[in-house]
């Protein structure tokens, strides 16, 4: 599903932010991406959600060679990758409903489907009463839930989440983790970046651990598969 071979990335003339990163994630696997702040977690996620090309090395996403992929192929890949950003990145001029509906509308879904699926998901994440509000009126936790809803609305093949439980209470965090697990059970490959080891302990899964741009897999003999 995701394959990195000797991947390195640097911004400008400095040292590499990621260095010699190699790993393979099987379809339907569930991994935590751990590491201290500045270890390169966001850069690794950017490479997977195709916002960045590597400075060196080879990346394959869903059997497509990213380095050589055409723009059309990259568009097709992006539509199958869901991302939850740490800073949510909701469009401030669109309502919560329209933000969550955006991936469906981009894919060309008809408005009946959009209305039905978005309403259902917003109700599920507890935002039914806020669907017509602008993101600026939502709390941090509500924004995070809206961002998660936007990422999963199209049932992506790969779901990347950057600190998805950072701004919600434990009960909501648990519900969101359950949502991720349910998505994983239906075949979505999950990579969840977190520095909160409670979730790693509660939902034990293999970790892609980054330390100063170098990747290690914990445990070393972890099968690159489903939730442990």
């Amino acid at each position, binding site marked *: 599903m995701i394959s990195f071979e000797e991947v390195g990335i640097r911004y400008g003339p400095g040292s590499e932010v990621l260095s010699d990163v190699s790993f393979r994630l099987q379809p339907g696997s569930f991994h935590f991406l751990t590491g201290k702040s500045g270890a390169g977690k966001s850069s690794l996620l950017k490479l997977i*959600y*195709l*916002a*960045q*090309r590597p400075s060196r090395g080879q990346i394959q996403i869903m059997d497509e060679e990213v380095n050589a992929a055409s*723009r*059309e192929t*990259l*568009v*097709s890949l*992006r*539509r199958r990758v869901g*991302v939850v950003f740490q800073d949510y*990145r909701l*469009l401030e*001029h*669109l309502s919560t409903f329209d933000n969550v*509906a*955006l*991936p469906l*509308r*981009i*894919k*060309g*879904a*008809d*408005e009946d489907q959009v209305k039905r699926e978005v309403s259902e998901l917003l109700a599920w994440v507890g935002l039914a009463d806020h669907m017509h509000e602008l993101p600026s009126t939502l709390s941090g936790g509500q924004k995070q839930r809206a961002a998660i809803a*936007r990422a999963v609305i199209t049932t992506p093949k790969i779901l990347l989440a950057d600190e998805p439980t950072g701004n919600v209470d434990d009960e909501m965090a648990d519900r969101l983790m359950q949502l991720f697990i349910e998505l994983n059970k239906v075949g979505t490959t999950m990579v969840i970046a977190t520095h909160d080891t409670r979730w790693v302990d509660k939902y034990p899964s293999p970790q892609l651990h980054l330390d100063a741009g170098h990747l290690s897999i914990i445990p070393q003999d972890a099968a690159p598969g489903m939730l442990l």
Partner: protein
Amino acid sequence: MSQKGPDFLPNEQAHRGLLNWVIGIMVFLTGMAVVSGIQLGLLADGWRASAAGSLTVQIVESDAAKRQAQTDAAVDILRTMPGIKSVNQLGEHDMAALLEPWIGETNLTEHLPVPTMINVSLRPGVSIDLQALSSLLQADVPAARIDTHEQWLDDLLSLAIAAQMISAAIIVMMLVATIAIVVFTARNSLLAQHETVAVVHMLGAADAMIARSFQRRFWSVGLRGGLIGLLLIALVIGGLYGLSLNVQSAYLPHISFHLTTFITLCALPILTGIVTMWTARATVKRSLLGMV
């Protein structure tokens, strides 16, 4: 929705309002150049048509009796020639009217050896062998001078063509300036919406889909700007036409507008919308290539 993609851009009413007026002024100036070019072309065509179907014979003789005798002879000869539709000698009253702008209202023409003038109209499609006509007249009318109007017509046509070329150059410059303004505005708009564009790009919006969102905005801006320009043109032309009705002068041609002028002017807002839309589309698509 599936074909066109969602409209994800926020309204930028203030910027667009300003751009409407900038484009409106560009369209106004372009439209005035278009009107000038077309009207000059029509005027030149009129000159050509009227000059092609006529010539003037002057009898330049200082002795009044001989002048009249030769005039009568010339009229007789001209009336017998094939291809000639009508032969009219200008009377004293007509000559006085022609000379009035230079010498005023006097009876001076009675005492001056003013040449007599004979207007000759040709049948449509007929061309006269000037050499043969000249030879024919020289025998009985040695004081005859034939004027085919070619000299002054060539000068006028050269002037009209030069003015038309200046109009065309102004139109091209306005087009280039409008495109430059749209490119600049589209880039600024893209910059202002960078986060929005980055998010929809990441969500899987194709370059064409993102460009369509911008081109919809710019089509509307171009169309509104074009309509503003058209309104300004209508006001100016209407005003000029109104003023011209109060001016009685032999030197001013009658102002009238050909259908071509109206059609071209009415097409300007749509053409502006199309140019604006496609310029914005190309600019945005080109800029998006900078993103992975």
